[in-house]
């Protein structure tokens, strides 16, 4: 019978690396998508996933069960992403023609527009809410932001997207 997440976490905390690897395999793709959308490069996202999983294994004893395991992984993974180049930090968007995630998403895909329009953190919050179905509370914890910040930014992002789409179609 397949073990539950709680069982796997308990076993992994006791030093069972096989249990942790099973846990990691359940979240690998989810974490990868989150990081790929954020950083744009598949290779960087793959590296960050691996590093985040290793850090999660090292510090599993510090995991607080009050939060979802995925939320804890997001928090770790965000620290593992390569720092943005100094020349691009002033830009309002994260999308560049070189990003392979842009090529993966179809031209008409709304997430492609979102990447080109929103700031990285706003895009991340939007993805966690609409792409992964995370709650406001979990997003706030994952991004180390307040609940109010999450709600306000989701609203701003929707408004910004609606404006941009209106400009494009209008």
């Amino acid at each position, binding site marked *: 019978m397949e073990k539950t997440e709680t069982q796997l976490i308990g076993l992994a905390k006791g030093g069972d690396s096989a249990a942790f690897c099973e846990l990691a395999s359940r979240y690998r793709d989810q974490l990868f998508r989150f990081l790929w959308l954020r950083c744009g490069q598949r290779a960087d996202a793959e590296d960050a996933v691996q590093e985040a999983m*290793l850090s999660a294994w090292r510090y599993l004893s510090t995991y607080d069960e009050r939060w979802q395991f995925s939320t804890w992984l997001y928090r770790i993974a965000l620290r593992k992403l390569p720092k943005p180049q100094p020349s691009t930090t002033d830009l309002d968007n994260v999308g560049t023609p070189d990003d392979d995630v842009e090529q*993966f998403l179809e031209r008409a895909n709304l*997430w492609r527009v979102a990447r080109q329009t929103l700031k990285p953190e706003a895009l991340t919050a939007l*993805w966690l809410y609409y*792409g992964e179905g995370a709650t406001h509370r979990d997003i706030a914890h994952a991004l180390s932001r307040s609940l109010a910040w999450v709600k306000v930014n989701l609203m701003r992002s929707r408004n910004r997207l609606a404006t941009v*789409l209106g400009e494009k179609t209008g």
Partner: protein
Amino acid sequence: MKDLETQLRQDAETLRSAKSESADASLRRAIAAEQHATHTRAPLAPRWLAWSLPIAVAAAAAWFLIGTPTTSEVQEPAIPQIANSDVPTTLPTDTLSLEQVSSTAPLEAEWEALLSDLERARDQIEQELRTEF
């Protein structure tokens, strides 16, 4: 706005079909290597410092207390009896000379240096613990 939300959820499906190409095996190997390294590696300097720090502090405190004369050990210099009419022409020989007074300065300097070293070691440990995670 409702349409936009629906569209966001629908379009997310494209990205949700993306899969990581890294295999479970690479994580297993990395964890195994880490476990092996943990079991075989020599104690790290910060860990060594962590347990030796209290001993060093205790030793330094003991050395300081033993090296410093207690109040009962300090002999008060005898106050020369001077009559009102007597005007001293020379300094009394049983008072502390300037050299004697300043001889405690190196002891204080060493204590300060030791404290400073201990604080640096503590800062380094804290820094390494912060950066490790």
